């Protein structure tokens, strides 16, 4: 695995922004580093919305939010000194199975990423039981790579 081949998993949250900023700081002077910003898209539950239009509207809203986030993340990495061509973005659609964490790990393995960066929400034990934690699953299940968890 190439540890300078870096995968930052983001979800347009403040936690993800902190992860991007942390990676930008660490990688500012790292020659040869390549960064892929990965967003795993999970559509909001259809049952939550009364009409197809309302659901599609929310999907579009979230899509736009992520698009803006990725644009901002690229700008932050470039401002730290990473060249434009060293940054790429990727979005993937994920249903309930496999989980977001598993999808991230699949991408990490397929792309031979040696470093995986992710933000952490700081869930309580109860929240982790009921909702699950992407960062915890990544720590438990990642193989052949370093995992940076940014709180």
């Amino acid at each position, binding site marked *: 695995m190439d540890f300078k081949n870096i995968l930052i998993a983001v979800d347009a949250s403040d936690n993800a922004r902190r992860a991007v900023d942390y990676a930008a700081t660490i990688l500012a002077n790292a020659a040869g580093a390549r960064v892929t910003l990965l967003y795993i898209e999970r559509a909001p539950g259809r*049952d*939550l919305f*009364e009409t197809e239009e309302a659901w599609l509207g929310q999907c579009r809203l979230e899509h736009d939010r992520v698009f803006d986030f990725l644009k901002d993340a690229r700008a932050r990495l470039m401002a730290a000194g990473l060249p434009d061509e060293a940054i790429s973005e990727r979005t993937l659609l994920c249903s309930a*199975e496999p989980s977001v964490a598993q999808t991230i790990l699949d991408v990490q393995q397929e792309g031979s990423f040696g470093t995986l960066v992710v933000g952490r929400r700081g869930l309580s034990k109860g929240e982790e*039981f*009921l909702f*699950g934690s992407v960062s915890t699953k990544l720590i438990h299940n990642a193989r052949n790579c370093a995992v940076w968890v940014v709180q």
Partner: protein
Amino acid sequence: MPEPVPLPPKMSVRALVEHFKPPVSVSSYGAVFTDTTEFMNITYGDVIHVGGRHYLVYGDERERRFGMEDPKFWVKRCTELESGQYRILKLEFRETFDQHIGPLTITCHRSAAKESRILKLVEGDPRFMQGVTFKDERGNLVRVLERVQGRRLDLSVEDIHADHRSYFHEIYPGILERFIRACRAILFLHEYGESHGDIRRDHLYVDHASGEYCWIDFDYGYDTTENPFGLDLFGLGNILAFITGKGVHTIQDRANADMDGPLITESDCSLFFRHRIVNLRKLFPYVPEELNHVLMHYSATSEVYYETVPELLDELEPCLDILRRA
């Protein structure tokens, strides 16, 4: 669902009511509703016409918990006039509300579409309540449900007249065996990407005829999370603790009873309900270590949680063998 009884042609709804003489007194026939949007206005004596059949409304269903009764205005107790059968009609009621689980607040929504999908999925499966969905003339999803011929599991367990030791050795293995089958029923939903959403001990019934367990009420939904079945696993753990303990045991109960035995602390209690004891082996030393280990996954000290039903069953099923051998 039973086949409709052949009717004389072009009977009025009034004639239908009189023809079948439902086992209730209907002093005045109300309105016939083909649109159930304003379900609050549909009351005793009204008739809901949906799916080509007529349902005479007796009243609203009530939720009975902790000795309290809350009317559910969107759930009507009815007689299907074409067959004379008792039916429960769940009318479409979209709501989003906060559900409190211990210190956590979870946003939950009530979804007729979700329950309708599951009813179709489990058609003919006695492990689940049965029913069909029709659309009224406004497109609202009306679920026509058969009454489960049985009794709530928690009430059945509470009514067993035996001390815990006798219950645990003589009756509990059979209950656990059926509960494991009920867990497999939940796994069946999960395999189709559905969750039950509201697993509580009063949502599991014991069928009078077969003794098997039957799940009811699947209309709660939540937004997707990294652990989509976490709430169901949480509910299964609560029921497991209940049937194992033959009721809920709290720190306060124990203190009030002035019982001897090992000290019970918060670490022996549920992750979500810090007064509810899940370390039942401390109360009942004959609970096998393996079974207690399963319960302790739900304790405040646990660091590893079940995320899937197979993970739970991998550890629970061997406990049944241990109990059978004992």
